[in-house]
């Protein structure tokens, strides 16, 4: 089973609730970084403008590039649910290594501001999932633009879901576990 995200780009308003909720759920520190980001894509010239947002965290790829390049095996993929997790105790750090960030086609691995910061990324709130709860980003989205489930469930629920959307290119090498309702057809 592979756990996946679903993102409805027609609904996202770029409100950042998912970004800050993720950060504050996973850390008490005001220095903490969020494992999720919101990207804004502006198109056209005045007055024919269009704006799309993309809320993105680790997409827990079927074939994670980060895992393959990690020299110390700090990154692993859980068999039960396909969630990719990083062991910060094993990670060599950004200054000493940083290979995962280079390898990831979506520039997902995150590092704090400290010296030789260890890699951090979305763990799909697996502790919440184990309690039958939704990931915090899905839970807080005011417009229900984010959802999650097994890839099969999501494909059944969202028949027209795509693997690409504005700001996100499908990379068959890694096969990201995320489906979209795209803003533009």
């Amino acid at each position, binding site marked *: 089973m592979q756990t996946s995200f679903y993102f409805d780009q*027609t*609904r*996202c*308003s*770029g*409100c*950042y*609730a998912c*970004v*800050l*909720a993720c*950060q*504050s*759920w996973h850390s*008490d520190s*005001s220095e903490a970084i969020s494992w999720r980001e919101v990207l804004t894509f*502006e198109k*056209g*010239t*005045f*007055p024919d*403008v*269009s*704006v*799309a*947002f993309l809320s993105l965290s680790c997409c827990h790829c079927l074939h994670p590039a980060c895992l393959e390049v990690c020299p110390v095996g700090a990154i692993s993929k859980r068999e039960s649910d396909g969630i990719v997790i990083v062991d910060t105790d094993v990670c060599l750090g950004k200054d000493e290594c940083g290979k995962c960030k280079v390898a990831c086609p979506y520039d997902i691995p995150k590092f704090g501001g400290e010296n030789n910061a260890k890699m951090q990324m979305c763990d799909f709130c697996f502790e919440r999932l184990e309690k039958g709860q939704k990931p*915090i980003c899905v*839970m*807080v*989205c*005011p*417009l*229900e633009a984010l959802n999650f489930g097994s890839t099969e469930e999501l494909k059944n629920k969202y028949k027209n879901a795509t693997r690409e959307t504005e700001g996100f290119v499908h990379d068959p090498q890694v096969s990201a576990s995320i489906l979209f309702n795209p803003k533009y057809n």
Partner: protein
Amino acid sequence: MGDHGNQSIPTACCHDCGGRCPYIVHVEEGKARKVEPYPDPALRPCVKVYAFPQKVHAEDRLLFPLKRTGARGDGKFNRISWEEALREVATQLKRVRDTYGASSILGLTANGAVGYLHSPLVLWRLLNMVGGFTNRWGSASNQAAHWASLVNYGTVGTGNSHDDLVNSRLIILWGWNALETMYGTGTPYYLVKAKEAGAKIIYVDVRFTNTAAVLANQWIPIRPGTDTAMLLSMAYVMIREKLLDEDFLKTYTVGFEYFSNYVLGKEDGITKTPLWAEGITGVKADTIEALAREYSTTKPAALMPAYSIGRTSFGAQPFRAAMTLAAMTGSIGISGGNAAGVGSRPGTSGTLGGPGSFPVGESPSEPVLPGGIKPLVVDHSLHKQYRIHTAMVWDAMLTGKAGGYPADIKMVYIACTDCLNQWSNTNKAAEAIKKPEFVVIHEQFMTPTARFADVILPVNSHWERNDCFRGLDYTAYGNKIIEPLGETKSDFEICCELAEKLGIEGYSDKSEDEWIRNVVPEPRDRAGNILSYDEFQKQGIAFTPIREQPIIAFKEQITDLKPFPTPSGKIEIYSEQLVRMGNPDLPPIPKYIPTWENIDDPLAQKYPFQLVTFHPPRRVHSVFYNIPAINKLEPSVVWINSRDASMKNIRNGDKVKVFNDRGATVLMATVTERIIPGVVAIAEGAWYIPDEHGVDHGGNPNVLTKDAPTPCGGIPYNTVLVQIERS
């Protein structure tokens, strides 16, 4: 809800946006750290609540009473005891009252806390019992919308509940950045549902906001302060092409013929054609004609003007014009329509505070009429006689009675507001507030206003006290989560203790808990069953009133021919009341009056850009500015169109200075296609950080805004001329 010694406690947000969002706080090992929403998407809060753990535990929280040591405004303070602080404030209150009269005490409050108990009203009650005080009048928010709704409908309860939006086929959001300003928790959700149900959404605004990004089928950019001209020309098209609901106008309105004559040019010789409007608004005549036809032929259609268009120098006019269009199309009192008024729910007082609020008593400084001076009236003569307009409090401090104000201000008592930062002309405010003999403030942080206080009384956060909050469709119980940090106290506790120091009896005969029980309406669950108070507190949310269908404003007037609460009993497109008031800036029918600082003003030679100041999507006004996680998401920027930017040699991310004769602010340029050329936009609420030359480096647009009331009592935050240069 205990779990291994941990607790999940329902509470709610206390700040002054249009929502009153309930949420749950998880306490782990005694620390309140994690925030989670209710599962219902219509109850989900915005990004800000996830910053509450940081805000409540912020290192810069004021935890002890402080007394000024340097010059006023230097920001130098010493810690003092509560005993000393309260004694000082009580002594000053008595001294100023006995020496100059109680009206020399100016009470400045706003909606920094909006609970049933913890709100500015606890201070009003205290000051009234001290012997009275001079209050302010004029809402910085929705004054024009309120006033215009009272004129046309006799009430501010003009809004359908937002679950009715899915029944609209056309929704025109006019200046309404609904997804980011949250008028009512759940409103963004209902709008998205409406769009997905097939409603066409047209967005008329200066900026292409994130609301436009998600919802708009069409964006119609318009110059600030010109909305009335466009609405009038839409009316012209509808009259010319006979796209009118004649029966509706005949049955439910008075004075349409006066309006029609004015639109057709019979009154002033100017025919309000789309071409006429194009020259004023910057909107193409074709676009206006198409919109007029679409609005009058699509049924049902909801024209939804927002408060922003009212925050212009003649901001009541676009609201009255929009309400007239709503009548011309028969869009009032029906599902899927909208009366185009202020949008409060029928039966509410017009504020989210709702009924049963804390009793303030009568003010001895004001004439003792039944109920005192009413906040919502058409004629503000009494307000002008006994109170000071919000935009003029700084001028009043400087000039007092000689300047035509009701009192010479000797003491200023501030609570629940960062007024120096948030009301117009902040540089003037920073000078004026040095003049009174004593300034005291209740605050959580060293805000730009608090820096000017003589004594700062530290207030606890809403996580440190119980309260209740009124949402549009529910009451939320704001449970206390943790003990008050440091020596902080609630506004209510401070006022109780001051009353005791002053020897005032009867300030409060109830505990905090008893007051809340007393002021909150009977709580019910979703099925309509009465909840005990204890159950309500435990569940955190109650639903009042219970309903199965959306609420439709004016349904009784339209269906059952019940009179409107206006003098004529009908919708007053023409108002005799306004004829009697005789103010040419408040004409009996809605008229286009060019704003003060407009692009044809000679001042535009020097300051060629119009400025609009919008609500910061990730702050509540000035609240959260000092919280790093939020500040990072809401940097101080000015929006400028790429054409203007290239003319001014400004690149995206450049440091720029925006200035006029009132002041200057330095911030970063956001060069974008998302704003009409000729206009720059800055979010309000960034903290005023002046350098030694008085130039603000926080990005606060109120160093630029004009301190003058609009004719209906509003503040013209969106009527400002400025220049912009690379810094």
